[in-house]
């Protein structure tokens, strides 16, 4: 009896299936992402920027409005680490506070593009036919717009119409929201209007190809409704490339906002935005070039970080490179 039990155990031990590491798209992708040094560097920079933005009041040496006119255009040194601007405000602190503006614009743009764009694209691609035609025509028309010009037009509209303060009207409430955001609310609207187009196209293309796959047919055969198929099958397969697309689009939103602030149509002073810092420093460039170059470097580093991260994500999520 014991011999048989021992043999049975030996048999089970020898023919046992060895443990395999769990294979999961996200774990795989994360592992590959970590191997990519540039992507890791980009990710670290993004995290540092997030910390700078959230904890700005504790990290920045001075508040961004604190200006000492005596220290007008101070050189970089002990007191002002990167120098001071024309009103004696510390440049480093203003750059750190500016991180808030740029990152919030990037995040809001990304979230808008993701939510509106992906949903629009999935619905359009999944249903196909006439619905797809109509929805994509709308996207094509919006694609024909020179986006920069449209955003500038909208910003001028917002800044002049909603500068009223008579309480109670719709315009006044909107302008109160805007002031609460530090002048960012209308920029969010402006960028959101054009951000979702790219995502919509990508999502629609993928949905069109995904709906021909067998698992969709199987899901339909087992009685899933269209909505369930879209949510449970199509959407999860889209998320990878959409995340990549959104990460790579964030530098575009940041540049838009910086340019709007550069021409004066962005945040209201004294809220510092890197674009506004560059435009102020630009006027003093002949004598104090550091005022324009340091914010520019901050802008470039941020955009580089997102580009590295997006590239790394794209390579990591690529199923062909396994």
């Amino acid at each position, binding site marked *: 009896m014991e011999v048989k039990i021992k043999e049975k155990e030996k048999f089970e031990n020898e023919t046992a299936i060895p443990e395999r590491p769990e294979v999961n798209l996200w774990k795989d992708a994360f592992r590959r992402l970590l191997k990519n040094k540039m992507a890791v560097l980009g990710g670290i920079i993004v995290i540092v920027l997030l910390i700078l933005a959230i904890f700005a009041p504790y990290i920045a040496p001075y508040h961004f409005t604190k200006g000492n006119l005596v220290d007008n255009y101070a050189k970089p040194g002990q007191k002002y680490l990167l120098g001071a601007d024309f009103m004696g405000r510390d440049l480093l602190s203003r750059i750190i506070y500016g991180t808030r503006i740029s990152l919030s614009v990037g995040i809001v743009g990304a979230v808008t593009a993701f939510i509106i764009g992906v949903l629009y694209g999935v619905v359009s691609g999944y249903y196909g036919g006439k619905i797809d035609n109509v929805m994509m025509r709308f996207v*094509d*028309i919006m694609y*024909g717009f*020179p986006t920069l010009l449209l955003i*500038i037009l*909208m910003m001028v509209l917002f800044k002049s119409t909603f500068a009223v303060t008579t309480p109670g009207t719709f315009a006044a409430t909107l302008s109160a929201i805007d002031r609460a955001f530090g002048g960012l609310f209308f920029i969010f609207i402006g960028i959101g209007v054009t951000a979702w187009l790219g995502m919509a196209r990508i999502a629609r293309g993928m949905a069109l190809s995904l709906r021909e796959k067998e698992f969709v047919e199987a899901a339909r055969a087992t009685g899933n409704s269209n909505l369930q198929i879209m949510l449970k099958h199509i959407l999860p397969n889209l998320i990878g490339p959409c995340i990549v697309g959104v990460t790579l689009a964030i530098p575009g939103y940041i540049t838009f906002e*910086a340019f709007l602030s550069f021409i004066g149509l962005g945040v209201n002073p004294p809220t510092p935005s890197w674009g506004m810092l*560059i435009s102020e420093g630009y006027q003093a460039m002949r004598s104090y070039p550091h005022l324009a170059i340091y914010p520019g470097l901050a802008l470039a580093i941020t955009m580089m970080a997102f580009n590295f991260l997006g*590239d790394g994500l794209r390579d990591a999520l690529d199923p062909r490179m396994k």
Partner: protein
Amino acid sequence: MINYIIRRVLWAIPVLLIISLVTFSLAHVIPGGPFDREKPLPKEIIANLEAYYGLDDPLWKQYTDYLWNALHGDFGPSYSSRSRTVNDIINAHFPVSAQLGVLALIVAMVVGIPLGMVSALKQNSFIDYFCMFFALLGVSVPAMTLGPLLIWFFALTLHILPVARWGTWQQAIMPAFTLGIGGAALLARLTRASMLQVIREDYIRTARSKGVSEKNVTVHHALKNALIPVVTVIGPMFAALVTGSLIVEQIFAIPGCGKYFITSITNRDYPVVLGIMLLYAFIIIIANLFVDITYSWIDPRIRYT
């Protein structure tokens, strides 16, 4: 294929109509008129001016009048520069923007395509990594950083290039480079990816085994096929460069259409705003159309049904 071309051309018309409608509405919703001055003009003068320019007509009539004139090529007068019509303004400023766009495109092609090719031919070598890092930098550094940096370095420190403005060829170097470097980076990555694919094709192997020299294989067989996706990108890139020259024009004080667009919005100069917007939209649509049409001509494997 002719059907496809005709359909695409016909689609451009409603797109332009909608863009003109949206721009017209947005421009007229902005409070303030073109005749507001610091010291307000007497009411009768403003009424006279508005009657002269047709601004007292109902909005829909203004819009349809505008469209009718636009179809005949007349984009209306300019409210702020009283001696010029919108046509004059566009004729004066647009060539500058177009020149800048073309120069930037040339910079992008001359810098980007060879870099991409060399990277692909010597894959994973030092040159490859260096060029691709350069390309990543070029895509990431925005014009607003690069412009002042270049101005500071070349004009203020080394004094070999003029600071800003437009006219001589020295003044054109920095703006064209600032605008074009992003495009160069994009083209370099695209050329490299496409070249890598083409090099592995069977017909390249056939050519090599037939004894064709490596140079001929690269130039005559690989390059032509590798450039197909590049050509499809150049059309929209040109449109993006011309319409995106706004930023560079602002930094280098170049008297182009973009800069004028911003000033005319501030001055509530509706016809100029509409005219420039329609012009830019037209360029974007034409560039995309051109690419779609020539793509099927270049690559016989593609046939649009």
